[in-house]
């Protein structure tokens, strides 16, 4: 078979399988991709993950089908010692490849940047995020320490509780910080992940979209009980939230008196090792 036929046949197989597989990936895999629709940010991630999957599928198929094709057709016949054609390159193909991969990669970077700067994408945005959503925000401070998360609500007198409860459809500003080592606050269903660093106020904006219970895990190795640093948070209605926060205020009233005043960060005592 002449070279052109190989190229044409391989091209046809690749294009047909791409046309079949890519929509299948989007339709079948898209809805089950993480992290679900717990918040606006989480739904955004599902879209991003689906787009990336859809872009990766043709590339995956190109190389894998090529590999299989070449294994089947470009073999040394049994017992022979034939040489292949002495082709050392193809300037046009190389240029095309460079142009196409560059275009793909640049569009990925632009897409990622746009999606990131739309709403912060639930990723830790540092002490002064570039994009701050307009409208009222409920500030909640997440304090990580070995090996638990606690939460302070500065607009409710700086009350500190071991439970995270958020009102639904309300933009929340999470101020994540640590008292000792580096932790990472991961609210899986909300699509939130942000490192908790000592002396840093790492800000994330998230807007939960429906009532739910979500998982909270530490995602940065923080010592021996890192694996046990998990919990559940709740998204409740606005009225249920108001009742809950009042209960918490009375439950932790005594503890509140000995708490340090609310602050963006708390400088931990230096750990001195002494030799």
């Amino acid at each position: 078979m002449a070279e052109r036929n190989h190229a044409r046949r391989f091209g046809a197989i690749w294009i047909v399988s791409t046309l079949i597989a890519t929509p299948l990936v989007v339709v079948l895999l898209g809805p089950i991709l993480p992290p679900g629709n717990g918040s606006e940010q989480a739904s955004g991630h599902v879209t991003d993950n689906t787009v990336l999957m859809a872009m990766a599928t043709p590339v995956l198929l190109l190389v894998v089908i090529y590999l299989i094709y070449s294994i089947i057709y470009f073999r040394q016949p049994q017992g022979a010692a034939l040489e292949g054609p002495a082709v050392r390159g193809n300037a046009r193909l190389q240029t095309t490849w460079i142009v196409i991969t560059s275009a793909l990669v640049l569009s990925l970077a632009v897409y990622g940047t746009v999606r990131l700067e739309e709403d912060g994408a639930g990723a830790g945005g540092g002490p002064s995020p570039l994009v701050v959503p307009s409208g009222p925000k409920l500030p909640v401070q997440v304090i990580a320490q070995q090996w638990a998360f606690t939460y302070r609500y500065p607009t409710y007198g700086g009350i500190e509780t071991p439970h995270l409860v958020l009102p639904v459809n309300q933009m929340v500003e999470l101020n994540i910080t640590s008292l000792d080592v580096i932790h990472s606050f991961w609210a899986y269903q909300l699509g939130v992940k942000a490192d908790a660093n000592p002396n840093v106020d790492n800000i994330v904006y998230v807007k939960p979209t429906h009532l739910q219970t979500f998982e909270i895990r530490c995602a940065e190795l923080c010592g021996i009980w890192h694996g046990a640093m998990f919990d559940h948070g709740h998204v409740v209605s606005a009225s249920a939230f108001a009742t809950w926060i009042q209960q918490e205020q009375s439950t932790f009233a005594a503890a509140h008196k000995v708490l340090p005043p609310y602050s963006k960060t708390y400088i931990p005592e230096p750990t001195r090792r002494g030799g």
Partner: protein
Amino acid sequence: MSTTTEAQTPETPSRPLWRRLIGFNLLSAVLLGVGGYYLGWFIGHQISGKSFEFQAKTDENDVALLLAYFFGVVGFLIGLGFANYPVSRLLGRPASLREKEDHGIGRYFGLCTDHKVVGIQYLVGIGVFFFVGGLNAMLIRTELLHPTPTAFGPNQYLSLVGMHGTMMMGMMTSGIMGPFANYFVPIMIGARRMAFPRLEALTFWLLMAAGFILVSTIFFGGFPTGWTGYEPLNDQAVMGMDSYICFFALVGLSMALLGLNMIATIVTMRAPGLTFSRLPIFVWSVLATAVLMVLAAPTLIAVLLMASLDRTINTSFFVVGGGGSPYLFENLFWFFGHPEVYVLALPGFGIVLELLPVFTRKPLWGYRLAVSGMLGVTLLSFFVWQHHLFVSGINADLRPFYMLSTEIISIPTGFIFLCVMGTLWKARSTFTVPMLFCMAWVFNFLIGGLSGVFLSDTPSDTDTHGSFFVMAHFHYTIMGGLIFTFFAAIYYWVPKMTGLRFNERLAKAHFWLMFVAFNSTFMPLFVLGMKGMPRRVSQYAPNLQGLNIWVSISAFVLGFSMLIFLYNTVYSLIFVRLRAESNPWRSKSLEWQVPTPVPVHNFEQIPVFDSDPYEYGTPLPVAGAEPAPAGA
């Protein structure tokens, strides 16, 4: 006394056994190493004003342990004879540039400046630590059979995780650079030795000392930080952390020196006619890797020095309360850490591109593209490190830049894939064991690269960062990229290095079991990561247990495939000892043209090059005149 005289062989002139044991050899090295260790231990106790104890107590005395390691390593190196040359020169005595380049088996157990001996020393030494690291992985997977800590305590478990990661990232950095670059680069470029033979031997023995130091961490409580050693957990950890610091600093030193040596050798010692455009592609990959090693490793040494000062004399580079910042550690560590992963990947590119022409009977397709791909990866890998810190809150406004630079790095990586595919086009491929490992590389690295796209995109990375998804990704790139090509290189070149051949059937069994088990182990980890399982935990959601059991069993099968390799090695190379043909792969590369075993000085006459080593294939036919191949 009389018995020793009788036992003497004619070759060794009258020296009794006890006299032969005294001198600069491995025995003195171990004795001086242990002596140095206790000297440092003693001095450390004097400095810190604590009473001297032979037995270490966890979290007792970091100064003493670090000094003990330091003096131990110095004693070890002096015992091996590394001080002889500089001391002789200082005293004005004649000194030999090259040492122990005879033919005895003894030269493998001490300081030897023959690059071929060092290559084999590296292969065996690194192989041992590779198996230790692999055993750690088996224990980790044993623990993860159950969603709560059962087999190990949390501290033991984290120590295993840390040792596995650090061992693999540290020792296997030189997995191809150590054995194969040291052995074959001088031969491939027509040189009789490396530029700095003494330095070459030093890099190996530093690595061995480092390996034992890392293993010794189990006596000092282990370390809880994983291979990244993040502050302030690092500062908080017990004495086992000092083993990590010392290990990685020594590995960094070994890497930097190895890189320096490779650059000097490749740039200055090429034979006449071997221009840069004729250099074997493997040598190009070694050159690119060496540049990365020289530029990245010093940052590692510096950051570990800072960490050790924080731990010992209470500086506060990383202590928040003292004005330091853990961000500094993250930044410096990943400034080393990201080039480091390309140090692991690039030699793999070189191996694949070097072996494909031999087994496809075609010239390397797109030589210049491949070279620019490697150099592009080398350059860009210094501009991407903060993609490890997308959610850390550090320089959040710069994330679009790191997203862009990280995604751009897939362009030069794509060059390598195009060159592989171009070389396979209309090839006459023979699927020998090395070729199978190269083909597996194409698949593994493709999966690794495509999953990397998810991690380079900040919104997507928010889901996957710190989860098993990352773990699966870098096992696909490092194990799938480096270890598969490491085995390709072993099956391809060990017949040259030893003159013996492997059992083909066992080798194929090893390949297929390893390839299937590898994918069956790491593919489900993508799913586990996406379902929310973080890395480095011994406790996970009970609904993930089924998949974890699947992964663990696959991992055990993967471990078993390594045993097949081990059995094949022992069986074929020690017991059966079938002689390999002089050029079993019909390669046109220079290393297959020299006699086996390779003479001490490699070449009688320095060769002269008039082409690159890829003169395979029949010249291009006139259009349409080519006969149809069978099977079409």
